[in-house]
C-alpha cells in the first residue's frame, strides 16, 4: 500500500462528503473499495469519524454568543487602554535615562572636585567655591524626579 494513496481516492471522498456511501455509490466504486486496501482503510476511518462527528456536534452545548461578544469587547478595551499608556511609560523611561546621563556627565566634568570630596581633602566651603550651588540643585532635582516617577509607578500598579 502506497502512502501517496489511490487514484480513486478523490471520487471516494466526494461520495463520503455527499453522504452517499454505500447506498448512493456507483457499484464499481464499491467493488474498488472492497479490493483496495488504501481505500478500504480510508473508508473505514471516515465512516467512523463522521458518525462520531454527527454525535459530537449534536451533543455540544455552546454558551451564548453574546457572552463571548462581550468578553471580546472587554479584551479589546483593555488592550486599547494598555496601548494608550505605552507612550507615557516610554516618556518616563526616557526622562529617567536623561537624568542619569546628566548626573554622570556632571560628575565626569567635575571629576577632580568629586575626588577631592571623596578623600576628605576638600571642605564644603572650598567645594562651594569651586562648584557653586550646582550640586545642591542637582540633588534636589534628582530626588524630586525620582520621587515623582516612583509615586507614578506605584499608583499605576495598584489594581
Amino acid at each position, binding site marked *: 500500500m502506497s*502512502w501517496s494513496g489511490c487514484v480513486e481516492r478523490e471520487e471516494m471522498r466526494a461520495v463520503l462528503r455527499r453522504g452517499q456511501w454505500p447506498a448512493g455509490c456507483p457499484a464499481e466504486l464499491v467493488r474498488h473499495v472492497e479490493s483496495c486496501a488504501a481505500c478500504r*482503510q480510508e473508508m473505514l*476511518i471516515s465512516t467512523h469519524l463522521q458518525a462520531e462527528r454527527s454525535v459530537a456536534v449534536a*451533543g455540544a452545548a*455552546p454558551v451564548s454568543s453574546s457572552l463571548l*461578544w462581550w*468578553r471580546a469587547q472587554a479584551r479589546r478595551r483593555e488592550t486599547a487602554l494598555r496601548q494608550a499608556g505605552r507612550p507615557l511609560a516610554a516618556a518616563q523611561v526616557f526622562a529617567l535615562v536623561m537624568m542619569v546621563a546628566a548626573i554622570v556627565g556632571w560628575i565626569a566634568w567635575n571629576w577632580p572636585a568629586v575626588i577631592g570630596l571623596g578623600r576628605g581633602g576638600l571642605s564644603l566651603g572650598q567645594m562651594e567655591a569651586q562648584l557653586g550651588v550646582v550640586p545642591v540643585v542637582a540633588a534636589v532635582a534628582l530626588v524630586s524626579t525620582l520621587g515623582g516617577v516612583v509615586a507614578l509607578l506605584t499608583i499605576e500598579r495598584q489594581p
Partner: protein
Amino acid sequence: MNWEDAIPSIAAERAEPRAEPVMNSDEFAEFYQRSSRPLWAYLARASGDATLADDLMQESFVRFLCADMPGDGEIARRRYLFRIGSNLLHDHWRRPRVMPIDELPEECAAARDASRQSDSRLMLDPAMAKLRPRDRQLLWLAHAEHYSHREIAEITGLAVTSIRLLLFRARRQMAHLLEQKGGGLR
C-alpha cells in the same frame, strides 16, 4: 525535533487585539451558530476532554473576534477559527499539567456528552485514546471535517508534505486499531 517545535509561532493569535471587531454582533451570532458545534467536536475529540473543549472553544472565539483575520468569507473564517483552536490545544499540551487527565473523574468528560454509549464511540474511543494527540487532530480534520492537506497544513502549521505522510501513518494505525475492535467497513 519534536513535532510541536515545527509549528511556527502563533503570531496571529497572540497579536494584540485590534480596535474594531471583524464582524458585527449579528454576523457573529450567525457565524457562531454555524461554527461552534463543529469546533467543539474537534477540540473535544482531539483532546479527549469535553471540559477543556468548552474552555478552548470560548477562548478561540474571543481571540477570533480580536484578531486581524486573513482572508474573507465563511470558509476562510472557519479555517482560521480552527487554526486558533489548534494552537490553543497545542499550547495546552505544551503546558506542564497540574493534574494528569487520567486522574480526572470520568464524569467530568462524560456529563456533557450524551453520545457516550453510541456504538461508534465504543470502538472509536479506545482507538483514539491510543493515538498521539497530533494524529487524532490530523485524522479528525481530514476525515470528519474533510479538510484538504493544504488546509490542514494551514490549520496546524505543519508542512503539506509532512501532512500526507503523517496522515498515512495515523490512518494505518487507526485502521489497525479499529479492525482489532471488530469495527469493519459498514
